[in-house]
């Protein structure tokens, strides 16, 4: 589904991703772990199309199509959605408006018409209940004044409404209390399907206790230096990154 090959990325002249390879197949959940500053958010930003990142080498394909050639919105409409590490506040744009406009943009790209209002409300009602969010969040400006955990729930709410084929979740677990962690994890798990995939960045095993990954990668200094199964994450939790670094240097 997603194929990243020999990806090199520079930001403001600084070489950050240095030949990164990653393949995510449909039906799978992948977790990326790694020390601060290794390039995890950079990878998700480049996949989502954020400006300011220069790809100097390599390729990214999604369902066989060249992602780097696509506009940001086109990527999203094709089902490639990024859940932000730091969701941005958008004063004056109501949450419900964003949800509807985004859903209709996707439907339009799929050749469907605008979603009828009752159907939309029904969908929203179901998803917001699933995320255990109060309906008043719909009327509030996107993320404005939301607590850290509320912002993360809101990201997942968007995912549930938009049903991405590939969800890129950047530290979706940071700032969540124990109950919220469970709600968010349930949300993510509900996105799991044979024809979908999830790629999530995390620092902690506790998220992976709820969402069992098929593959765990360790990203260090712009490269994936080790991949394994769910056990690898547990080992990292117990031992830290030093041994991986030593192993890869050897």
């Amino acid at each position: 589904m997603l194929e990243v090959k020999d990806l090199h990325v520079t930001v403001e002249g600084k070489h950050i991703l240095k030949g990164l390879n990653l393949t995510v197949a449909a039906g799978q959940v992948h977790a990326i772990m790694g020390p601060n500053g290794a390039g995890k958010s950079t990878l998700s930003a480049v996949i989502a199309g954020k400006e300011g990142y220069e790809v100097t080498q390599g390729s990214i394909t999604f369902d066989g199509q060249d992602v780097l050639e696509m506009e940001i919105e086109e990527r999203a409409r094709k089902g490639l959605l990024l859940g932000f590490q730091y969701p941005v506040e958008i004063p004056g744009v109501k949450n419900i408006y964003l949800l509807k406009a985004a859903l209709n943009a996707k439907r339009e790209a799929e050749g469907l018409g605008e979603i009828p209002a009752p159907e939309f409300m029904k969908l929203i009602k179901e998803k917001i209940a699933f995320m255990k969010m109060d309906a008043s969040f719909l009327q509030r400006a996107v993320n404005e004044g939301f607590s850290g955990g509320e912002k993360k729930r809101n990201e997942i709410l968007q995912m549930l409404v938009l049903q991405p084929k590939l969800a890129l979740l950047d530290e979706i677990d940071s700032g969540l209390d124990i109950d919220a962690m469970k709600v968010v994890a349930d949300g993510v798990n509900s996105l799991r399907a044979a024809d979908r995939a999830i790629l999530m960045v995390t620092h902690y095993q506790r998220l992976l206790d709820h969402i069992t990954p098929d593959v765990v990668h360790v990203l260090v200094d712009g490269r994936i230096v080790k991949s394994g199964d769910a056990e690898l994450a547990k080992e990292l939790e117990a031992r830290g990154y030093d041994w991986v670094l030593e192993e890869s240097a050897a």
Partner: protein
Amino acid sequence: MSEVQGFLDRLSERAAARGAEPTWIAARRQAGAARFEALGFPDRKVEAWKYTDVRGIARGDFALAESADFSPASAAALTLPIAAHRLSFVDGVFAPALSDLGELSAGVSVERLSQALAANHEAVGGALGRLAGVDFSPFTALNTAFAEEGAVIRLAPGAVVERPIVLQFLSSAGATPRMSHPRVLVTAGARSQATLIEHQVGEEGAANFSNLVSEVLLERGAILTHYKLQELPQTDHHIASLHVDQARDSRFTSFNLNLGGALARNDIVSDLNGQGAEANFFGLFFGQGRQLLDTHTLVNHNAPLTFSNENYKGILDDRARGIFNGKVIVKRDSQKIEAHQNNANLLLSDRAEIDTKPELEIYADDVKCSHGATTGQLDEEAVFALRARGIDEATARGLLTLAFAGEVMEQVAIDAVAERVELAVAGKLPERFNLAGLVEAAVALHEE
């Protein structure tokens, strides 16, 4: 100056062609002409016109329209689709075919200025020019000299007009440029209520000059909501001043929505003369291309316990230029007043420019005043966040631009007016931005 002479010549031609008028009108015209001749067109040395170059008007060769020619089809497309008491003018000339006053309730009179002048009402003679004197600006003087058509709206005490009264000023794309000097007078009796919409709109290619002066007298407890929707083609020149006199407990709310014109200058002045009087000034100006949009507002707190609240949003794209000058004067002994003013501007291009100047002159000590002015750009992180949800870039930028205007647009109660503005500012959106229906549905969901 020969520029001035050209206008004076037009004036004498007009005077010769016009029949006899009551002496008071003739005297005022003369005073207007004399004042205009003395002042000339303002140049950049005049503080109030420092940033506004009116040479495009001064050097123009504008004729006075003789008839109201406008294609009914294009008029239909331009007219606000709302149920209203409507008077239309084409280049200043009354257009009966495009007007429909409908049925007016008791105590409400809406006349054309020409009718009111012909009838020589005392009520009109006394009021006209009382607020907008010929000294206010050369353009007010010029308007006073030329004014023949416009509207006189009189509300008896307690009269309530349910539907808005719309004065539609159409600008036509004729062979030669034209000028018009419409004059509007509103006298609102005690506790009367009305909504007045002044709508400037025109055909593609129109390059005319309109010079509007409006005077509004609010008696005790009268409530007037005034909309100005200015969406002239970007080749038109428009100057307008609105003067309001407010007695005790009256409330005046102005929505000044400026979208069009090569040059559009608006002056709004409110005199709060009685305790409990309240003025609310909301405004939005949106400039593109090389438009110049200039707004000057002035609130005079002449009495204690008076309130003013002003919020203007400016959005400028391309090489457009905006000017906002908001002045509040609190007289000595005008204690316990409240005056708040805010002007926020959004520059959508590096070459757009804004000059904003809030001015507070306070001569009383027990007052609550605030003012602020800010200028910024769209948040690119937010643009990305919206696009990353599949919303195309133009819509994302449009949404954020409208969100910026939100505080003002949320106050606009007439959907048809809000829609025109939203469309102009944001282009085509997936659906109405304020989404009344959706929000209601969300509320219902919330309450279940």
